[in-house]
Structure formats: C-alpha cells, structure tokens
C-alpha cells in the first residue's frame, strides 16, 4: 500500500499534477484523468459549451415564435419543448466530444491508455454529463422567462438527473461509434434519437406530471423506465467499448 502510494506520487511529480491526494485504482484514475482533461480543454476553449448554450437558446426562441403568441395551456407543450431543446443541444455537444479527439489526432493517444478502454467511456460520459447538465440548468430559467411559464421546481431535479444520465451514457457510446463513419455528424442524431426515445418520452411525461401537480404514483413507471435505461447503459457500453474503438 505504502509503496503504491509513493509510486503514484512519483507519477504525479512527473506529470506535474498533485491535486488528487487520495489513491485511486488505475482504472478509475484513467477515467478521472480523461474527465479532467475534457473539462480543462473545455474551460480553455469554451467551444462545446458556447455552441450548446447558444444553440439551445435559439431552439427555444424558434419555439416561442413558431407557436401561437398566447398559449392557453403552456403546461401542455412546455415539458416536451424543454426536452426537445435539451436533446438538440445535447447532440451538438456529444458530436464534438469524439470528433475533436479524432481531428486533433489525439484519439490514438487516448487509445494507448494501459487499462481497459471502457475507462475512456466513463471519463467521456461523465464529461458529457457535466456539460449537458450545466447547459440544462442555465436554459431552464431562460425557458421559463421566454414562455412565461415556470419550469423551475425542485422536484424536477431527479427527473432531470435521470434523463441526463441516460442521455450522456447513450450519447457517448453513439458519438464514439459515429466518429468512425462517413457522415459522422449527421449519423449521430439518426442513431441516437431512436434509442433515446423511450427516455425522452418518460422524461417529458414525468416533467409534465410534476408541473401539473399530479400525484407521484402516476410517474412511477416512467421513472422506473429511466432508471432501467440508465443502469443498462451504465454497464453495456463499457463491455462493448473495445469493439467500438477497434482499429
């Protein structure tokens, strides 16, 4: 144990990172480093974040103008529109997460990590989850403002989390798949939306139920479906990731 710690500290000295002061198994460490790398790149370039937030704002504005000026029942359409905006914005971010690596030629470097490649998946998925949830949390107040219909409710947080976890997991897998195809940017939504559809349906239904103050029992099965998808896609992509990134 002691020796492991010193070896790790040596490595930290070499790489110049001393922030993580607790010992992580190599596998988790790789995932964590991938995540940190993504966040750091994003903090420097703000490429994904700015594109996603501006695009989601534009989507909401298109909705506002495309729908009749005075919606009698904003509650009927708002949950669905909110999730459409999240989904569109999310795909934009997901697309970049692997295409950037590929275009910069850093994907090969990433594939050289000495652990199982599923660690890359977890790191990337966590990164995508972070970016998407931040954009969602920023978009919700703006959405409420523009639609004059508040979607800011604390009870929505679990729904948002469950939906976004599934979103990040499924999306990261498909982004990794699409990056090696011909029409990669176009293919991602085509692959991603159908599989994601049950989660989107469940998320917008439970959002609608919560906003309308309907009883909690009504959304039990929708929440269950989202948990089911989240768990399945927590495990399955990790098993298949070797195959996805095979050269």
């Amino acid at each position, binding site marked *: 144990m002691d020796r492991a710690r010193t070896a790790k500290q040596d490595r930290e000295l070499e790489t110049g990172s001393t922030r993580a002061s607790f010992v992580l198994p190599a596998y988790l460490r790789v995932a964590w480093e991938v995540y940190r790398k993504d966040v750091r790149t994003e903090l420097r370039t703000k490429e994904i974040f700015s594109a996603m937030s501006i695009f989601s704002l534009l989507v909401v504005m298109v909705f506002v103008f495309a729908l009749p000026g005075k919606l009698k029942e904003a509650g009927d359409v708002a949950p669905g529109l909110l999730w459409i905006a999240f989904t569109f914005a999310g795909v934009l971010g997901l697309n970049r997460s692997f295409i950037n690596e590929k275009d910069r030629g850093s994907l090969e470097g990433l594939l050289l990590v000495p652990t199982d490649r599923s660690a890359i998946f977890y790191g990337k998925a966590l990164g995508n989850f972070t970016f998407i949830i931040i954009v969602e949390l920023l978009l919700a107040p703006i959405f409420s403002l523009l639609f004059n219909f508040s979607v800011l409710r604390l009870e929505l947080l679990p729904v948002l989390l469950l939906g976004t976890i599934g979103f990040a997991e499924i999306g990261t897998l498909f982004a990794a798949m699409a990056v090696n195809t*011909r029409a990669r940017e176009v293919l991602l939504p*085509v692959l991603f939306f159908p599989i994601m559809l049950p989660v989107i*349906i469940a998320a917008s239904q439970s959002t609608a139920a919560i906003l309308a103050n309907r009883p909690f029992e009504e959304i039990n099965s929708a929440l269950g479906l989202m948990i089911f998808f989240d768990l399945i*896609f927590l495990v399955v992509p990790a098993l*298949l990731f070797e195959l996805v990134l*095979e050269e």
Partner: protein
Amino acid sequence: MATVTKRMDFGSSGNVTGKRKLDWARVLLWTMLFSFPLTLLFILLAPSDFELKYSQRIFYFHLPSNILCLLSFTIYFVGGLGYWRTRKRKWDILMITGLELGVFFALIGIVTGSIWARYAWGTFWTWDPRLTTVTIMLVVYLAGWMLRSSVEDPNRKAALTAVFGIVGFINVPLVYFSTRFFPAGLHPVIFGANDKAVALEGFMTLTLVVSIITFSQFFIYLMIQRIRLENLRDKVAGVRMALYEDEDLA
C-alpha cells in the same frame, strides 16, 4: 477473405459438381407451394370472430410476421454477441440476415395491423403502447441499417453493426412486454396463463399454428437465401481481388 482467394473455383456454386447436396432452399420452396394454399384454406375455414367478424382473419398474417420480426432481431442480437466474442465473418452474415429480415417482417406486421385496426378500432393508427414500442423498434433498426451503409471498412462495419445490434435489442423485450406493463393499451395478451389473455377457440388455435409454421418456412427460406447471397458476394470479392493481383504482377 484471404481463404476465399486460395481456393478459387469459378463456375459452380457448390451444388452442381460432384455429389449432389440436398438443397434446403429448394426443398422449402417446393413445400411452400403446398403449404401456402393449405394455410389459406385453414384461414378461410376458421370460424369468424364474434365481434370482429371476418376481419379477424388478418390476425393469422399479423401475428406470425410479428413473431418472426422479433425472432429476426433476436437473431441479429445473437449474431452481435457472437461477433463480439469471436470477430468471425459468419456472425456478421447472421447479423445482416437478422437485421434485414426483421425490418421486412416488421413492415408486414405494421401494414397488416394497420389495415386490421381500421376495421377493429376504427382508425389506421393510434398510439397504444405496443404500436409505440414497435414503431420505436422499427426506427431503431432502420437507423442500424443506415449505420451499416455509412461505414466502408468491412471489419469496422461488422464491429459497429454488432454493437448496435446488442444495444438496440433493448427494444425487443420492451415490445413483447408492452401489453403486460401497460395494460391500458388495445393489444390483448395472447400467450401465457393470464386471466386477461384472449382465449382462442380450438380451430382458431390450429389455424394459427399452421400459419406460424408456413410463415416460418418462408422465413427460413429467406434466411438461407440471404446467407447464400452474402457468401457469394464474398466469393466475388475474393475472385476480384485475385484478378487485380494478377494484373499487378503482369
């Protein structure tokens, strides 16, 4: 593909020269010549449903094609698992077969169901849980088809198809259990000891079994031919490669 180039035999497709092998596709084709009219006879003789009258008979097309559709996607899934484990071309061929036949039978199922729904429920389309899940499943597999056509490298094509087949299979149980999870829908539960299950009369059950057997015959025939087609394509690719090699040498 390299193995194909080694044993180059032009001309025959294997069943012409030497000892004549039993060609299952041909056997099936001939038996189908009898089983199709027989099934049609059964369907015409089966008693009409009390409420749905004559329209209920489309059920004998509807159910078998949907069962075979789910079976095809299961075959695709199994092919995906096999490819994941072994990276062998034969699993890839099984995947293509499952994917294409699944989409084909899903379309038959949806079209027959839609026609039937017009008479039974008064509308061509409604968003009952099973229709929703089937539609999602069909769209998922159409996307898989697109994925396949947008990759050029054969190994990568097979790998991505396999991943998609394994991941996309999540929809199949969803379709099957949709009538049980969401009992508010319009589709009845047919199989299983369920007090809500729709009871079919004796002769109706017999007709259903006969039509399932006939459809399965058709299904196996298509499967054999699809696998054969893919093998022939491999062979053509091998021959072509060998020809180009010769050109390079000359």
